[in-house]
């Protein structure tokens, strides 16, 4: 990490498998860096204080709210965002399940939910409904009442088990 004049820092990191070097403000959160410096706008700002989960990303294999991580903290780290969930071959089973179960209405919380669900299923491939509800309690959705989201999570778990 190199600090320049005027509060700028050069950060070297890996995002969605690609090494990247970029210039950030010392005060940037990871979310701000992703959205405003790098141009990855899939992670959303809903609250900027860790309450809504719309900015969920994976940082070194851990699910985090990117608004609560400083950009400077990702030096040398591995970050996966919603943009890194689908592959060249197609959608991830979690994404497919959200589509098929109609688990989104406006869609603003969807990237966060998908990143958080993938993290859940990577760690607990066969969650109960209750486990899924507790894991996702940090992701707010105001449109769906969560019913179809939870169904999508359980359906994705079934698909991935096959």
């Amino acid at each position, binding site marked *: 990490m190199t600090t320049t004049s005027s509060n700028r820092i050069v950060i070297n990191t890996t995002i969605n498998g690609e090494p990247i070097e970029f210039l950030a403000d010392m005060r940037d959160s990871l979310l701000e860096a992703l959205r405003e410096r790098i141009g990855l706008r899939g992670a959303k700002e809903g609250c900027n204080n860790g309450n809504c989960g719309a900015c969920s990303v994976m940082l070194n294999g851990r699910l985090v709210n990117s608004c609560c991580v400083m950009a400077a903290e990702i030096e040398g780290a591995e970050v996966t965002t919603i943009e890194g969930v689908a592959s060249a071959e197609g*959608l991830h089973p979690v994404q497919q399940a959200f589509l098929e179960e109609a688990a989104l*209405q*406006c869609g603003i919380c969807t990237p966060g939910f998908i990143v958080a669900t993938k993290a859940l299923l990577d760690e607990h491939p066969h969650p109960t409904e209750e486990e899924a509800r*507790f894991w*996702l309690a940090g992701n707010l959705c*105001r449109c769906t009442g969560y019913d179809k989201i939870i169904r999508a999570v359980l359906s994705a778990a079934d698909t991935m088990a096959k």
Partner: protein
Amino acid sequence: MVATPEKPTYKVIGTRPIRPDGVDKVTGRAEFGIDTRLDGMLYGAVLRSPHAHARIKRIDTSKAQALPGVKAVVTSADFPDVESGTLDLGEGSANPKWLVDNVLASDKVLYHGHAVAAVAATDPHVAEDALALIEVEYEPLPAVLDVREAMLDGAPILHDDLRTAERAEGMHADATKRTNVASHLQLKKGDLEVGFAAAEVVIEREYETSMFHQGYIEPQNASAFWNKDDELTVWTSTQGAFSVRDQISAVLRLPVSQIKVVPMEIGGGFGGKISIYLEPVAAVLSKKSGRPVKMWMSRDAVFQGTGPTSATYSRVRIGAKRDGTIVAAHAYLAFEAGAYPGSPVGAGAQCAFAPYDIANQVVDGYDVVVNGPKTSAYRAPGAPAAEYAVEATINELAEQLGIDPMELRLKNASREGSANAVGAPWPKIGAQEVMLAVKNHPHYLSELHGKDTGRGVALGFWFNGGMESSSTATINADGTVMLILGSTDIGGTRASLAMQLAETLGLTMDEIKPHVVDTDSVGYTGVTGGSRTTFAGGWVAYELGMEIRRQMVERAAQIWGVPVGQVAYGEDGVIVGPVEAGNERHMRFAELAGKLAATGGMISVSSTQRKNTAGPAFAGHIVDLHVDRETGKVSILRYTAVQDVGTAIHPSYVEGQIQGGVAQGIGMALNEEYVYDAEGRLRNASFLDYRMPVANDLPMIETVLVEVPNPGHPYGVRGVGEVPIVPPQAAIRNALKDAIGVNFYRTPVSPRVILDALLPAD
């Protein structure tokens, strides 16, 4: 699903295809308002008032202006003077003078969080730094935050020139009296005195509801570029691009022809993204800086400064015969408007007793300004508070009469031909069908076991809107059809509208390509609100489909050289001509589409429709819950929502609307509220402290789609989005009574309120 016998067989309607915009939304590619990115753009930020009520003595922006990186600073002085008037917003209206004053305060700030000044800078952090350099000198004034206190003589007055608009027949307001009561309305039917005189049982109760926020996850945002030729482009997250264009035109005094509004994907609205906030500020910052400006609100600004729904005080009096016949009813409704007039009390008044056919009734409604954010529409605006008060009272009445609460409701149910609150006959409605479906539902018939558990029911009503919608449909040479829409897609309307065009044309959903476009590219379209989009946009899709059918038949006749009258548009999009000498004539839609260019040209049709035949919606909810006496926590054990949806176009998204409305209603019933301190400062402006339901607060929400097709729509569509938020507050309140024997008269019934009721007062 309860299918009515007359429901026709559809091929596309009633299926559950994947929505056309789905892949972009699950991969993070969809561009919401907050994702707008323009070359050379600046970042804007807004300075907000720390006071609930104060006179602005002086604003000095010179230090902010001098900060390196700051390109423009604006205050209300940069806005043109606008005159009073009425601007129709779609779901509600606004006076442009108040609208602009809400966008940036002029002489006074009227609530904590009222916008005072704004800056644009090269970096978001610099913009924040600049705000701290703006000096504002305030003269604090006494504030009033409660609707009943605001109505008292001697209360602090918000607007010196406000006088009560008296809308009750035969009543006159004092034209000299300074007041916070912006208006009084009265709906009257029959003779109230005669009605109550005939009553054998009379019950009267008082209720209060808190302010509730729509709680959309995407904050308000706007990006603007004011070009050198005074052509303004605004990219924003809105329920109505044309409404935003009208509002900007009114407050900036710029002709609509010079304003293009680009509706980006919208991250929730629920009525809260109709009014403008940042749009004109970004526009003026762009004009002053010469560069595009992007702005978005922090979450605390969203809570402080954007539209919650009204906090309310109401009093309901109902008179009935011992057999349960309701003979008289009166409701007194006082709704907070926030800082400027315009609460939804009028809608609330019309909804209050809507499920019931009551011969003698009066509803009085008061619109009252207080030192809080200007309220805006929130899902069935006005209805949840008014109907909560009535449904709670109906339940107490049932208990007093010893009649099953659903039996009592059915006995008094509104039906086709009976008179509504304004004396007009109801069209075909599903009120009784819904009530019967609730009463006969296995949930209602089941036994509820366990200590401190209870069951409640309540009904809901909402008008549903019609208003104006426009679309264009263009046939491609490969037989697909582009469907150009003016309606923001907030929860799956690209799908529901494309499905209706597909049905009309006998095509598949995949063959219709819906696109939402900007205000330069489609005819005038009202807001996505009032549960109107699938109804009104569906009418347009149907009309477009019928016109395409007509033109395709004409073209086929021309190609075949036969009279038009001998050609018909058949099932599955096959155009059939007369059979001659065993020579059959038929072309699939795609086949004919491929011949259009060479036989006279491609086909493109447009339509603008304004239909006033929206079908009213009724809902009935059943809830089981458990109360934890140690913590006051309420757990929802089971929830069933029955609703007359007319025809479910895409049942998954109909269910989703109902489940989402229920979840918001549960939040209102149990947890959500605005907490102000004695000085009128909002103390819980975050998602942590304004407690919306999260995934582990809720069970699965069962939906029962009753389908009583709306005769005023080609496919029987009624609106579905709003009415599900109406019953939960009363249903839960009634279940709490069943569980712990306490009647609550205020929402939310938070854990603290429950503990206060259960613990001995010491």
